[in-house]
């Protein structure tokens, strides 16, 4: 692997994208029909890309593991999507959105990519409205906005607490239109098992039909991974149960670099864990922090009484409460970025002020209800309050919500250049699966923006530049091409190996153990010692997995245990790489917090001199130490400063 080339166009920041578009190679319409593109994933990134490239005339094959494209994990996003429309006239601009995102990411993202993201953000809103996305509107009939963490302007568009659902249904709609038109061929309940590389280029994939168990191969001139994030390494997260890192991991093993695996976002407002049987965590949208105030008791004895049920939170007077975010960060208050809010909650709970099981803090709407009335709060957050009540069985209108941080998003992912191409020619990655835009911490409402930006407005352009010289490449017949035959056989052998372990432990029991190791050693507060221990434990767990796993059932039928085992094998490997990455990064930045590197006040201490780079890992073979490549980050247009939300 030679020097990483980000392919960022030269020239002033604001002109790079225009310049790129003006100079890239295009494919003429007649030739597009001769070019096949595989898109794995039907979330915001995948559905938007598949539909848009179908509209352009490419022949697209689109895959997902669920029974319908509409079920992709994007559907669960609640709060909203950012854009620099400045409809509120509160001083927003493309530059400000760009700046907030770079700063929010703690100066660990690439300037040019982030600027482009902010630039196309407005087109996304236009596009979605045209598709019939019913965004919230004000009485005048114009689009409404709310505020999200890390910004001083109101730029978040939303559809109740179901913004991801509505955006995905919009993308699914245009995808359906392309499926009906015959431009996109859809494969549901189909899991990608491997990438096929021919002469150094991505040429197809191996998939498993999750109903029949059949393993087949598909050819394409280019392959796009839009397979989402790997947060389920932690077992408990806000990700969908099936969310996985396997597709990204397979291509990593084929030579694509994996960037910043240690950058994971821990979301401050999730419903706390109830017990051992817990299978996943539920997010309470960040939008709640617009009106909710976060606090714990000021006195340790009050906290203890509340934990024991001897004191009700509603009975504790205001002067005995510690609104710790407002206290520590007066300028941003409850709307500090997620990493800051999560760490502050952990700090209070570690110090003994937690409520509930001790791992929870309050999110209180009493003042907002007094100020705005219950009806308005219900209109804003009704469905979230209802969801909370169903899960916890208490009424958040009268008793403050209990929340605690949980794993939510992975900023790390496949390394891509400005064109969203990985280090394997012909293999692209978009959405949460790539590492590109959020640096070490993602701002709220920016993942939806990125997924749709990549899918609608960036990839459909940049992929042309690659495909322009592929016109002459004839379609390969997977059944007769050795690379395809070999990849298929390798997958069959791998499944066989998994099935033959025949130990005595279920997949979930091992996965839960992995989650605990990760949370303890590679979670919110990391140390050199802890990470080293974590790595040893992960390696031992890998042994355990390959010795003691048991997958019941057969391979030629629906077998959820086999699916989970296949994903878990990769999660274990990803977990190890995350720990290694966290260990090499001797600084604290964004979601990556190393206890050794903090200010006397406990804030993250970045080391720009030594760590202003993207850490991209190259696979060197089984049981070999992967190699770290560094893409130095140039900040030409912003001044790199200490993040300050005070």
């Amino acid at each position: 692997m030679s020097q990483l080339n980000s392919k960022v166009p030269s020239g002033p920041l604001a002109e790079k994208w225009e310049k790129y578009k003006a100079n890239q190679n295009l494919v003429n319409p007649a030739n597009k029909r001769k070019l096949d593109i595989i898109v794995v994933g039907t979330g915001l990134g995948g559905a938007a890309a598949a539909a848009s490239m179908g509209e352009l005339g490419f022949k697209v094959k689109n895959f997902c593991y669920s029974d319908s494209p509409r079920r992709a994990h994007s559907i669960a996003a609640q709060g909203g999507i950012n854009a620099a429309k400045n409809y509120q006239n509160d001083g927003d601009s493309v530059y400000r959105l760009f700046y907030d995102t770079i700063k929010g990411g703690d100066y660990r993202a690439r300037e040019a990519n982030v600027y482009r993201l902010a630039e196309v953000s407005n087109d996304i809103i236009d596009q979605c409205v045209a598709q019939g996305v019913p965004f919230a509107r004000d009485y005048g009939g114009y689009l409404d906005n709310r505020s999200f963490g890390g910004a001083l302007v109101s730029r978040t568009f939303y559809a109740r607490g179901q913004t991801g659902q509505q955006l995905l249904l919009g993308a699914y709609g245009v995808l359906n239109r392309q499926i009906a038109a015959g431009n996109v061929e859809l494969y549901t309940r189909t899991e990608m098992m491997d990438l096929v590389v021919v002469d150094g280029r991505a040429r197809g994939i191996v998939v498993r039909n999750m109903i029949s168990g059949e393993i087949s191969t598909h050819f394409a001139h280019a392959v796009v991974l839009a397979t989402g994030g790997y947060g389920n390494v932690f077992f408990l997260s806000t990700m969908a149960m099936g969310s996985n890192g396997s597709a990204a991991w397979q291509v990593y093993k084929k030579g694509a670099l994996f960037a910043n695996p240690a950058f994971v976002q821990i979301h401050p407002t999730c419903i706390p864990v109830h017990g051992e049987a817990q299978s996943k965590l539920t997010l309470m949208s960040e939008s709640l922090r617009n009106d909710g105030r976060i606090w714990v008791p000021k006195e340790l004895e009050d906290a203890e009484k509340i934990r024991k049920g001897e004191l009700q939170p509603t009975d504790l007077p205001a002067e005995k409460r510690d609104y710790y975010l407002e206290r520590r960060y007066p300028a941003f208050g409850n709307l500090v970025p997620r990493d800051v809010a999560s760490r502050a909650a952990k700090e209070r709970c570690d110090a003994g002020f937690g409520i509930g099981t001790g791992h929870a803090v309050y999110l209180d709407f009493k003042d907002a209800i007094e100020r705005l009335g219950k009806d308005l709060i219900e209109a804003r957050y009704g469905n979230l309050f209802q969801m909370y009540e169903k899960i916890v069985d208490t009424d958040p209108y009268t008793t403050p919500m209990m929340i605690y941080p949980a794993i939510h998003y992975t900023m790390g992912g496949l390394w891509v250049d400005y064109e969203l191409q990985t280090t394997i020619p012909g293999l692209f990655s978009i959405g949460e699966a790539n590492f590109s835009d959020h640096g070490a911490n993602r701002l709220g409402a920016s993942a939806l923006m990125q997924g749709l930006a990549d899918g609608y407005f960036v990839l459909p352009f940049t992929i042309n530049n690659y495909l322009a010289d592929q016109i002459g490449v004839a379609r390969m017949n997977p059944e007769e091409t050795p690379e395809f035959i070999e990849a298929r056989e390798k997958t069959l052998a791998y499944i066989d190996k998994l099935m033959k372990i025949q130990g005595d432990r279920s997949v979930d029991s091992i996965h839960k153990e992995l989650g605990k190791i990760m949370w303890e050693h590679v979670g919110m507060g990391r140390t050199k010692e802890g990470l080293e221990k974590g790595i040893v434990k992960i390696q031992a767990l890998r042994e355990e997995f390959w010795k003691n796993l048991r997958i019941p059932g057969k391979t030629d039928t629906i077998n959820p245990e086999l699916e989970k085992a296949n994903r878990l094998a990769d999660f274990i490997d990803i977990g190890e790489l995350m720990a290694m990455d966290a260990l090499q990064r001797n600084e604290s930045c964004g979601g990556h917090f190393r206890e050794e590197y903090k200010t006397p006040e406990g804030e993250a201490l970045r080391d720009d001199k030594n760590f202003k780079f993207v850490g991209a890992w190259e696979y060197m073979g089984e049981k070999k130490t992967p190699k770290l490549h560094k893409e130095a980050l140039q900040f030409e247009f912003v001044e790199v400063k200490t993040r300050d939300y005070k």
Partner: protein
Amino acid sequence: MDLTLKVWRQENSKAKGNFESYQIKNISPDSSFLEMIDALSEQLINEGKEPVAFDHDCREGICGMCSLFINGRAHGPDEEITTCQLHMRKFKDGDTIVIEPWRAAGFPVIKDLMVERDAFDKILQAGGFISVNTGSAQEANAIPIPQHKAEESMDGASCIGCGACVATCKNSSAMLFVASKVSQLALLPQGKPEAVRRAKAMVAKMDELGFGHCTNTGACEVECPKGVSLDHIARLNREFLAANLKF
């Protein structure tokens, strides 16, 4: 709590299925229903048996992947809720719980509690969208939309495509699902140009795929986890189907 479960087991779409009984112990009332099934799976695996296959993904009531007929009710004994949001505190210690898949001609069982719902995708492919290409949209605020219209549209758009309406309906009609989409788009100026064609194409597809006719029993509305209202069916009938001759 300790429970007796009667669960539908079926090897594949061709096999004949049957109920199996299982005893399960020490379930926390704070567990979700699917976490209870996870516990059953763990138990079966430890006994060397195959766990029960069921569909689920988000586990927060939004992806529409979970299903299940629980004690004779779609999504179980609670209002406006999906199976994944149902919690065990709704049951009592010692209860027997009967768990079945959706049963409808349009949704064949593929294993145990899993059904195939791709018919819903096909109905939407027939016209459940606005025909706009990427890049051709105008400025988002160019057309103001009255707030109540946007809200009503959002009510229809809340459908999660779970299929409870079909599973509950004695005719296995998908009318609530179809109407929610027709309504969502027809209420917006952007969706108007294709409104009639869209409604007709989707209803025709629904019929073709073996879903029954709507006889207005209203059962669907009762079991819909998202509270999608019968008003959408009324609008579909009134504005599009009754007006058939006009177009």
